[in-house]
Structures are given as structure tokens and as C-alpha cells.
């Protein structure tokens, strides 16, 4: 522990301290962990340290319900003895805990097997330049201000309609964090980021029963949040619209996934083209590289360097530089989602996706001559569908990535001539993901940018809807 002696207790963040964008103490802690690993005989090592803090305020029926002050920290280290590895993590930043964690990781590495693909990312792939992606906009609102915002949001929801009978409350949360990653190839990078979120969930009630729905806004900078009253009104509108939901008779029909639930289809795509699923032969998209997976109009691409976006990152969780790329172009699968390990297993270079994808975006399309651009949002998609099901909520886990079999609980609306007819619930939508991807007929321009998977509403031509 050669470097530790010169950096004793200073490695722990004292309570109450503000985060800075590039905390030298965290860099020093990463360096200490790597030095300790070398000291204990590791041939290489990587370490990550994170600290974050935040405030979460909950208001229900106009009254404060919870005030939570969050403050988290963690240190994780992975050591390599040749091609054997072990990992450990701790929430204690003391030199003794750091030493113990490295020791625990080394003890594990003595028992794991030789694995030729294991190890750090190749040095030439590590990020050399780290662009500023403008992700850190701390807020630190006074508690009373946070309460006022949440209350305004919930008040607007409750005032919208007399059928809003109850509430699960509104919540404002604000977080900022700093993460430092380093490895023994000499990489040391840090990212400071913030995230602010306002959400509300209300209950509408009439003689048919109760229905709950919610809405939220999320942004890196407080100024990026939607108006709080508008968020409340949207939640209330959605809850009221669901009143009187019925079952549908079992049928085959086209289905539109509303943008907020359509992103789940992108997440299934990612699960199926992840390196881990491919080298285990656990994916219905095995050996589909270069093949037609979607209709020819479909383009799905990664945008890791979007300013202020929620999925942006300059380097992935093993220090590899991220880059914009097309995952699917003209409906053809052009790449996989790989980290260094799964890349080596598949004899392909890493795609900079250790830890996941970055702002994966399904572009709207195709251009429909019958509709002007403004009409290509959800309403345009429904007109194009004519008669079918609009899905606004999915529940359950009925997705099998190995076979592609898909069957999930759903709620939404029955649509005729492009117009909502009545709410439906207690139904399932089912198909096979391979068929569903090929049957995507249109993607709306109503792109939901509130997450890392970005898409507008999606029209799928033919699915089985099970009900009564």
C-alpha cells in the first residue's frame, strides 16, 4: 500500500461536503486501489469509485409525505492474475476497507478459472480525449422549494377533473454524482452528472372502479424539466381516460405501442444483440449480423455524445471511447452490443458498450405520402392503423430472448378509423419478437427522450390479443 501512506483519511468524503466536478480525492482513491492490487500481486486491475447525493420530496393530497436525503458511495475493484479474475466492492472508503476489498478480490481470483478472454480493455481502445457532454447541472433546491414544486404538480392533477378521487402523490427528486474509473493501463477518467425528476401518480374513480396512471419529466438540468402543472394534468388525463376499461375478445389485429412503452421493444433488441447473449447462444438473433431483421425503412443508432442527454457517456464502464454508430440501417443488423470480454469471445472488437447502450434511437419513418409531417405523431400512426389496439401500458415479464417468444399483459384503447373508441384492460399482446420486428410498419415522430432508449410510437402490423 505504497501510495496509501501519503493519503490517509483524506480519501473519505466528509458528510456535508459538496461534490466537485473532478474530485482529486476520488482519483487518488482509485489510484490507491490499483496500487494496492499490484502490491498484492495482481498483474492488472481496474477500479471505479462513485459518490452521489440528493434530495427526494414526496407530497400526497397536498401534504408532505416524505423527505429523504440520499448520500451514497461505493468502490469496486476487479483484479486479474493473468487471465483469472476476482471482484469486490465496499461502501467503506477507509484505507483498511480498501485493503480488505482488494484482498477479497485477490482471494476470489485464486479460485476462478483461466479465461483467455478476460482482462482489461485493449489500451488503444481507451478514450484519449474526454469531451464535455454537459451532464452536470446540480440544483440543490431548498426543501420548501422542492415541496412547492411537487405540490403544484399534484394540485394540477387533482384539479383537472372531478373524477380524480385519490392520489399516490407527486415526487421531486434531485441527484448529482461523480464517478471515477481507472485501470492499470494508465486510464483515469471521471464523469460528473446530475439528474432531476418530477413524477406524479393519481387515481381516477367512477362507478366502474378505480384507475391509476402517472406521468413524469426528467432532465440533467433543472431548466430541462417540463412545467410541473403540465406534468400533473397529463397524469390526470391519462388516469381519467382509462375509466371503464373492458376486456377485448381474443383476436388478431394491428397494435400501436405508444412511445413510452415502445422503448421496451428496443430494450428487447438490445438484450438479443448483447455479446453475453450471443456467445452463450442464448438469443433469437444469433448469427443475424448483416441480415434483414426489420423492414427496410428502419434505422436504429447510438448517439453517445448528445449534450445533456440521459444516456450520454464519453467512455464506457471499462474506459473504452464511445462513438456514434448505426446498429440497424435499412432494416439490416450491422452490429452487436459488445464489451471487451464478449467481443473477444466472438472475435470482434468491443463496441464501447460495457455497461450498456448510449441514447439508442429508432428514427421515425417511413415517410407516408398521405400524411404531412405533423401527422406522423401518435395520431398519424393511429389513422394509418385504422382499426386495432393502442397499447399504453405493459406489465409482466413474458419475454423469452432465447426463443423470441413474447406475451405480456397490456392496457390501452381500442381504435377504429384512427379514433380511440374505449379503454381496454386485462388483455395480453403476444407474438414472436423476430416476427414483430419484421412487422414494424411505421414509427412515429413523437420520440420520447426521457430515457436511454429513444423511439416514437411503433405500429406492428399483426399480433395476437388475448382477452375474453
Amino acid at each position, binding site marked *: 500500500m505504497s501510495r496509501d501512506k501519503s493519503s490517509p483519511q483524506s480519501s473519505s468524503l466528509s458528510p456535508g461536503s459538496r461534490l466537485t466536478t473532478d474530485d482529486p480525492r476520488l482519483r487518488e482513491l482509485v489510484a490507491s486501489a490499483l496500487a494496492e492490487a499490484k502490491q498484492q500481486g495482481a498483474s492488472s486491475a481496474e477500479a471505479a469509485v462513485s459518490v452521489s447525493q440528493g434530495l427526494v420530496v414526496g407530497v400526497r393530497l397536498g401534504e408532505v409525505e416524505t423527505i429523504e436525503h440520499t448520500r451514497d458511495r461505493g468502490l469496486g475493484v476487479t483484479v486479474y492474475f493473468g487471465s483469472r479474475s476476482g471482484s469486490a466492492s465496499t461502501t467503506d472508503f477507509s484505507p483498511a476497507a480498501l485493503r480488505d476489498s482488494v484482498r477479497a478480490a485477490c482471494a476470489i481470483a485464486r479460485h476462478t478459472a483461466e479465461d483467455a478472454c478476460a482482462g482489461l480493455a485493449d489500451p488503444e481502445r481507451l478514450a484519449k480525449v474526454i469531451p464535455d457532454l454537459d451532464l452536470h447541472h446540480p440544483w440543490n433546491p431548498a426543501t420548501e422549494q422542492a415541496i412547492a414544486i411537487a405540490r403544484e404538480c399534484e394540485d394540477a392533477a387533482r384539479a383537472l377533473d372531478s373524477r380524480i378521487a385519490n392520489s399516490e402523490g407527486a415526487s421531486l427528486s434531485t441527484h448529482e454524482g461523480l464517478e471515477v474509473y481507472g485501470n492499470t493501463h494508465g486510464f483515469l477518467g471521471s464523469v460528473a452528472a446530475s439528474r432531476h425528476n418530477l413524477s406524479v401518480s393519481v387515481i381516477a374513480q367512477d362507478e366502474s372502479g378505480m384507475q391509476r396512471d402517472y406521468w413524469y419529466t426528467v432532465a440533467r438540468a433543472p431548466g430541462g424539466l417540463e412545467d410541473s402543472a403540465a406534468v400533473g394534468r397529463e397524469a390526470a388525463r391519462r388516469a381519467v381516460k382509462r375509466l371503464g376499461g373492458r376486456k377485448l375478445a381474443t383476436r388478431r389485429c394491428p397494435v400501436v405501442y405508444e412511445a413510452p412503452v415502445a422503448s421496451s421493444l428496443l430494450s428487447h433488441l438490445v438484450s438479443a444483440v448483447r455479446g453475453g447473449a450471443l456467445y452463450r447462444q442464448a438469443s433469437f438473433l444469433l448469427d443475424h449480423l448483416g441480415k434483414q431483421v426489420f423492414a427496410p425503412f428502419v434505422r436504429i443508432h447510438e448517439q453517445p455524445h448528445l449534450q445533456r442527454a440521459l444516456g450520454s457517456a464519453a467512455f464506457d464502464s471499462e474506459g473504452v471511447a464511445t462513438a456514434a454508430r448505426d446498429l440497424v440501417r435499412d432494416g439490416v443488423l450491422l452490429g452487436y452490443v459488445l464489451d471487451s470480454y464478449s467481443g473477444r469471445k466472438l472475435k470482434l472488437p468491443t463496441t464501447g458498450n460495457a455497461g450498456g447502450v448510449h441514447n439508442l434511437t429508432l428514427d421515425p419513418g417511413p415517410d407516408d405520402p398521405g400524411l404531412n409531417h405533423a401527422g406522423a405523431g401518435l395520431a398519424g400512426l393511429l389513422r394509418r392503423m385504422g382499426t386495432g389496439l393502442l397499447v399504453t401500458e405493459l406489465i409482466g415479464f413474458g419475454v423469452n430472448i432465447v426463443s423470441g417468444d413474447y406475451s405480456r399483459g397490456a392496457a390501452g384503447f381500442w381504435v377504429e378509423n384512427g379514433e380511440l373508441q374505449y379503454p381496454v384492460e386485462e388483455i395480453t399482446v403476444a407474438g414472436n419478437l423476430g416476427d414483430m420486428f419484421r412487422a414494424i410498419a411505421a414509427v412515429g415522430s413523437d420520440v420520447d427522450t426521457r430515457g436511454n432508449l429513444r423511439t416514437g410510437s411503433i405500429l406492428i402490423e399483426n399480433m*395476437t390479443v388475448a382477452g375474453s
Partner: protein
Amino acid sequence: MLDIAKKTLLEPAELGTRELERLFAALTAARIDYADLYFQHSRSESWSLEEGIVKSGSHNIEAGVGVRAVAGEKQGFAYSDEIGLPALLEAATAARAIAHAGAGGESRVTSHELRITDHGSRITALYAPLDPLASLPDDAKVRLLERVERAARAQDPRVKQVMASLAGVHEVVLVARADGMIAADVRPLVRLNVTVIVEQNGRRETGSHGGGGRFTYAYFTDPVAEGFAREAVRQALVNLEAVDAPAGTMTVVLGPGWPGILLHEAIGHGLEGDFNRKGTSAFAGRLGEKVAAEGITVVDDGTLPERRGSLNVDDEGTPTQKTVLIENGILKGYMQDTLNARLMGVAPTGNGRRESYAHLPMPRMTNTYMLAGGHDPAEIIASVDKGLYAVNFGGGQVDITSGKFVFSASEAYLIEKGKITRPVKGATLVGNGPDVLTRVSMIGNDLQLDPGVGTCGKEGQSVPVGVGQPTLKIDGLTVGGTQS
């Protein structure tokens, strides 16, 4: 247990009764009704095998204190991952601010004198306070996983991939409440899982099995571990033959054990105290009403020895109990933590749980199951002309307000003219919580609890739970297949 907890959590930080009293004095300002400190030290590890070798392992330590002050319905909360007086005093100051966030009454907490009550020693411990991580040398953990892999591959040449993982947790908790009560618990938890992929003529299918509970790795003897592997392979091979599942409403027979996830989703969440106090559950205000067919009794029981969902005391220090939720079809009770019990004017039921010191407790299930009925399972199958027999499930989810729930089968068969015929692909079953149990027409005599791998998520917090049930026949459940 209190001694172990004090040695682990309080003594290293030089926290004695005097320091705790000082903390409560700082925490219980005017208008505070209740306050507690939750000390936790958790060590966990996991080992995983794939492609025939144990490739990775990890060791994790999580320690900290959650500090909570309650005023009426309002909760102030802060936590610290440093267990020490200065950090705790700061957290207490932050949590106490809840008292000023809106109007409130007089303080009802008058005493700051701690009267130590060790619930842990007043009841028979439900599990031994052992450290699973130390219960087996590391090389034996690796050999155990290798044995699972060999057993799976030996079972059938169509097995192409075997993934197995072994995980253990040693958790020590201590709850100190402003009313003077101190309780502690030492909670071992282990789990062994195996997933296989089989292939035949280019078609690939999976099967999974696993088990565990609150004991050490000694539970995973060779026959137990090899049994998990064989069961995973059996399920995967069944799925190789499966045809598309039917779509529509039909009679569904659920097998015993893990299919009890039905109870967890369809009624369990809806009977948690917080949703009922707030009136947001489809079951709110229905105590005493008939919500299930005659003969149906459902309990939540945190006192089953060594079960995954069991606790000696919950995360607020309340001893766990067996709570009757539905008795002979009638809704009898809700599951409560201290906050919701106080606000509803009932007694806590030992269901106050939290994921960790960094989360607020709330009413959560422990082990939720239905008592056995009188029918032979074979007689139940024989009574169905056309329907679905579902015996293994993935996960489930519920909308507690509308009552609509789903759970997804991973092994199911068609029933035709009283006989189990072809296996069908996993389908999602969807239903309505408040009425699904009224459609139960036969209850088996074969109550089983699940093997011990369930994890429940609520408001972003995960906790280990158990479920169980006998074979059940439900008239009219929607099956979400593709064959209409």
C-alpha cells in the same frame, strides 16, 4: 443476536446507550411521533459458472445507518454509510426537519431513556446466526458449481450451455427506536441457481431451477445440487417439444409451490397496509367481505423456520407472525408496518421491511401461501375437459389500483378431456385480483412452498420472499398465447 449485532455495529463505532440516547434527543424534536435508527452490516458474495468454468466471483460489503423521524403521516429520512456519532447526528438533524415541513401536533415521544428489549432472545430463533460465506472453503464453492454443470450435461447430450451461480449473504441488523426498544437480527441467506440451454434441430430452449433459504451452503449437498441441475434440464427438454400456447379465457390448473406467485400478485400486494390506508388498492375498505371461494385460506407467515422470506424481527424490530389475510374466503386482514398500523389504529404485523439502511421501510410480504384443500391433484386434472396446466413460472406484476395482474408461465401443458397432453410455450396469464380467487373451484391437498429463490420489488426496493400453494383449479383465466 443482540450481542453479535452490538459487537458488529455499535462497538467499532464506539456507540453505547449514552450515544444512542443523545442521537434520539437530537432526532425527536417537537412534533415527532416516532423515530428509529436502522444499523446494518451486510457481506455478500457470488460465484458464477458458464462454459464449464467458474469465470467470476465478487465480494461486497455494505454498511450504514438509516435515520428516520415520523410526524403524523410525514417521514423524514437520511442515512449514512459511516457508522459514527458525528455522521449520525448530521443525519438526525436532516431527518428531524420533517417536523417543520407543514403543520403537526405536540410531540408524543417523551422519553429518551433507552430500555433495552431484545426481541431476538425472547423468541425461538427461526434460523441460526451463521455466516454462510465462511461455511464452505472457496475451492469447495467452485467444486459445487462444477458439480452442477457436470450433472446437467450428463443428463442429456442436447444440453449446450449451463450457467450456474452461488450466492450468499451474511447480514447483521440492529433497530433502535425512540420508544426505547432495541432489537437485532442476524440473517443468513443463500441461493443456488442453474439455467440450461438445450438445442435440437436448430431450436433452442431454456430451463431454470434453483433453491435456497436462511441457512448455510451446507444445504447444497450433492443430491440437492444435482437435483437442481436435473430439474432445469427436464424443463428445457419439455420446452423443446412445446407448441404455441392458446389465446383466450379458459380453465387453468396451477401446480403446487412456486405458482403461488398468483397469490403474491393477485392479492398479496393489494393487502399491504400502505395501499389500503391510502385507499389506492382494489381491496381497500373490503375487510369482512367475501373475496375468495369458500375453503380458501391465505396467510402471510414470516415465522417459517429457515425460509427465504422469514425474519426473526422485521426491519422495524417487530417480531414476525403468521397473519391470516383470507379465511375461508373472507378478507380478514392487511399486512402492516408501524407507520400504517398506527395511522389505521391496528397492531403492526411484523411486515415492515426495507431493502437496506438507505431505504425507508414499508409493508411487504414475507412468505405468502394458501392452505391445502381436500382434492387429489389427479382428480383436479381429470375434471378439466379443455384447459391449461401451468406448473412453472417466471415473474409476475400487478396494478394494485385496478387489480389487474399478470404472471408468466415457463412450463405449461394443454389439458384435453381430463388428460395432460402437449406442452405449450410459456404464456402470460392475466386476471383481476379481487375476483380471481372467487373462481377457484377445486383446491388440492398438496400444499408446497417454493424452493426459495423469490425476490419481490416494490417502489424500487427488492426483498427476498416466499410463496406457496396447493394445486388450484381456476375457472376462467385469460391465457395470453398466440393460437386463437
